[in-house]
């Protein structure tokens, strides 16, 4: 009995001690309790503050966010303490956190009340917080910013904005707009940080100019003058892109300058060679393979390493090394993190998302340059110089002046529209998620401009006029062409010639003249004259080769 009593005593004492310990841990030493006590002591009137859990509940967004239990400065009705890492005030944004909650934008685990859990830095929480320097990627949960121009156009606009000293009167992302020189009062113009979202007077320029000419007080005459049309257009692009998400629009613009949609779909638009990226920002880091990613185990780190060397991070990935700088990689990470498209109720959808998903409006600007940057640049080069990626046949240099001097618009348009069946070039005009007719024409115009606007001389001959000796052509083809274009025209170093769309859209003149003149700056020599690597061919021989190439079309 003595042993049993001892057992009871020891077991009870241990239990009691553990219970007391657990009670202390929960009611005294919890992180949020310590923070709230610290906060209370900093308040002028500590007695008004109660240490308790606080939360924002938004049932329709399924948000129950207890972040404000620690971030007390952001809790409704509490005073922020400037400079403190946890008690600071939320930067002014369009969306009131007490109406939308926190996790909708920032990610993380809103229900959690422990720091690591709340920030999502724990296993089994698929959506960690978006790193604060990419915070505006959270906009992508609901927003689909529309008509974003390519990065060059955007940067042109920014330079114009800076050069024209708009910041003198207008604020932009917390800069400028403080002083109007010579003004009687310190009056300022409107903040333009969200001009693109909230809209602005389309005739702002005329009105500004009128007030300047009238010499209104407040420095109008001194600080405003006529602006050239070109710069006005650049300013318009820039102002349209100011939607209150600094950095994100630039990141999106870069995405639409590198030709990413040539292979990837986002929101149903783009190529099919790569994975659909519509929800790429919501990948669960717990399911990613970090064995070849140095540094922290976060989606941002994984994406950055992936952009540096895709196949090294994901073995078997077809994505080539794009040779991007670290700043570009950072921007791509930023944009990818914004690809969230959560299942928020449609009542919460902003106008831009409705327009994109219900009315089919484009997320990118539909001028030729942006379209080219969106769909073509990855393979054909940002200036049409063509690209070579290891393990893939070279992509044609479509900005080559020799090409543009031979190819009529109809040929290029047909190529963009119908692609190259069996090759990597998709039929952009026909495939799901491709280009619309007007967009194809814009792309063609842009391709034309890449060569400086060279256009072929009008060709009076019909599309098919060749009468060459195909048998002779076959022999000549085998000796002169097959090494690059393949014995059966299947394409190797040079493009595939035995391709239905190519053969149907290329005119005989195009074939003959291409062989005759070659392509300067590429491996294609001009057979019309003697070069160190190739002998001169007579016109009849060239026509024979072209006729032989034509036989592939007839055979079909």
């Amino acid at each position, binding site marked *: 009995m003595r042993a049993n009593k001892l057992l009871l*005593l020891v077991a009870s004492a241990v239990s009691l001690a553990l219970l007391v310990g657990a009670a202390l841990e929960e009611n005294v030493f919890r992180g949020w309790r310590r923070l709230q006590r610290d906060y209370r002591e900093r308040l002028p009137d500590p007695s008004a503050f109660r240490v308790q859990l606080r939360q924002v509940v938004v049932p329709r967004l399924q948000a129950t966010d207890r972040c404000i239990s620690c971030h007390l400065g952001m809790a409704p009705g509490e005073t922020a303490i400037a400079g403190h890492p946890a008690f600071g005030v939320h930067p002014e944004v369009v969306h009131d956190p007490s109406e939308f909650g926190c996790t909708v934008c920032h990610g993380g685990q809103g229900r959690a009340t422990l720091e690591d859990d709340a920030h999502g830095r724990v296993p089994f929480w698929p959506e960690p917080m978006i790193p604060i320097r990419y915070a505006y990627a959270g906009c992508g949960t609901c927003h689909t910013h529309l008509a974003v121009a390519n990065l060059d156009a955007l940067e042109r606009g920014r330079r114009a904005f800076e050069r024209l000293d708009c910041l003198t009167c207008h604020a932009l992302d917390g800069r400028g707009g403080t002083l109007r020189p010579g003004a009687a009062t310190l009056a300022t113009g409107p903040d333009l940080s969200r001009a693109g979202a909230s809209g602005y007077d389309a005739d702002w320029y005329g009105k500004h100019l009128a007030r300047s000419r009238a010499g209104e007080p407040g420095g109008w005459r001194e600080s405003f003058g006529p602006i050239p049309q070109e710069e006005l257009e650049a300013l318009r692009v820039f102002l349209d892109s100011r939607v209150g998400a600094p950095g994100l629009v630039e990141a999106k613009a870069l995405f639409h300058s590198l030709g990413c949609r040539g292979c990837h779909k986002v929101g149903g638009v783009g190529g099919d060679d790569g994975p659909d990226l519509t929800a790429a920002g919501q990948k669960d880091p717990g399911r990613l393979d970090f064995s070849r990613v140095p540094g922290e185990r976060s989606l941002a780190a994984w994406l950055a390493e992936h952009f540096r060397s895709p196949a090294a991070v994901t073995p078997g990935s077809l994505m080539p090394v794009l040779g991007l700088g670290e700043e570009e990689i950072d921007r791509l990470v930023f944009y990818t993190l914004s690809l969230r498209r959560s299942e928020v109720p449609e009542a919460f959808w902003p106008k831009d998302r409705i327009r994109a998903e219900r009315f089919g409006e484009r997320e990118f600007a539909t001028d030729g340059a942006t379209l080219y940057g969106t769909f073509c640049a990855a393979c054909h080069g940002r200036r049409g110089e063509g690209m070579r990626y290891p393990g893939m046949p070279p992509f044609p240099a479509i900005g080559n002046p020799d090409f543009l001097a031979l190819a009529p618009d109809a040929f290029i348009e047909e190529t963009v529209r119908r692609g190259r069946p069996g090759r990597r070039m998709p039929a952009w005009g026909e495939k799901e998620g491709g280009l619309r007719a007007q967009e194809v024409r814009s792309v063609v115009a842009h391709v034309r401009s890449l060569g400086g606007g060279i256009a072929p001389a009008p060709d009076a001959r019909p599309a098919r006029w060749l009468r060459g000796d195909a048998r002779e052509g076959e022999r000549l083809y085998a000796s002169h062409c097959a090494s690059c274009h393949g014995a059966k025209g299947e394409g190797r170093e040079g493009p595939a010639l035995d391709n239905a769309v190519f053969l149907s859209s290329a005119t005989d003149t195009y074939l003959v003249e291409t062989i005759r003149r070659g392509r300067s700056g590429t491996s294609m020599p001009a057979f019309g004259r003697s070069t160190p690597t190739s002998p001169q061919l007579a016109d009849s021989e060239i026509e024979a080769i072209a006729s032989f190439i034509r036989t592939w079309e007839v055979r079909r």
Partner: protein
Amino acid sequence: MTTKPLPVPPARSRLEAEPLPRRDFLGLAAGWTAGSALLFSIVGMLRLPKAAVIPAPSSRFRVSLPDSLAPGTAFLPPGRPVAIFREASGVYAISTVCTHLGCIVQAAPDGFRCPCHGSMFARDGSVVRGPAPKPLPWLEVRKTGSGLYVVDAKKTVPPGTTETA
């Protein structure tokens, strides 16, 4: 059933009253420790049902008043227990939760009537008749830049406080 008469019990028998040893320190200590551990755990269990956070959504909501709203007529935003008035003096909101037992009072020409126990309130919320112990509270109303009003159903203000129309 027959039983033999019991012989005289021996000196030490289980039938003999035999108190516990007076000073069973170990037994007492063990018993009391076990008791306090169980008591402490029961206290912990009793804390559990009292919710630390109330899963209620924000009590603040935005409302736009129809232009046709006449003075003296209550505007009842759907789904919210609030009546909003626009008078010459300004806009104010009154809770429509009866202060007696929490039924929702209904607007009547001369104020509010509670359907549950017959309390009557004047248009300014003061009790006219019935068991309600307190007047209907006035709620905070703030006007936003875009002409909407933000009402906080949890924040009471002194009666007579209005927001400019």
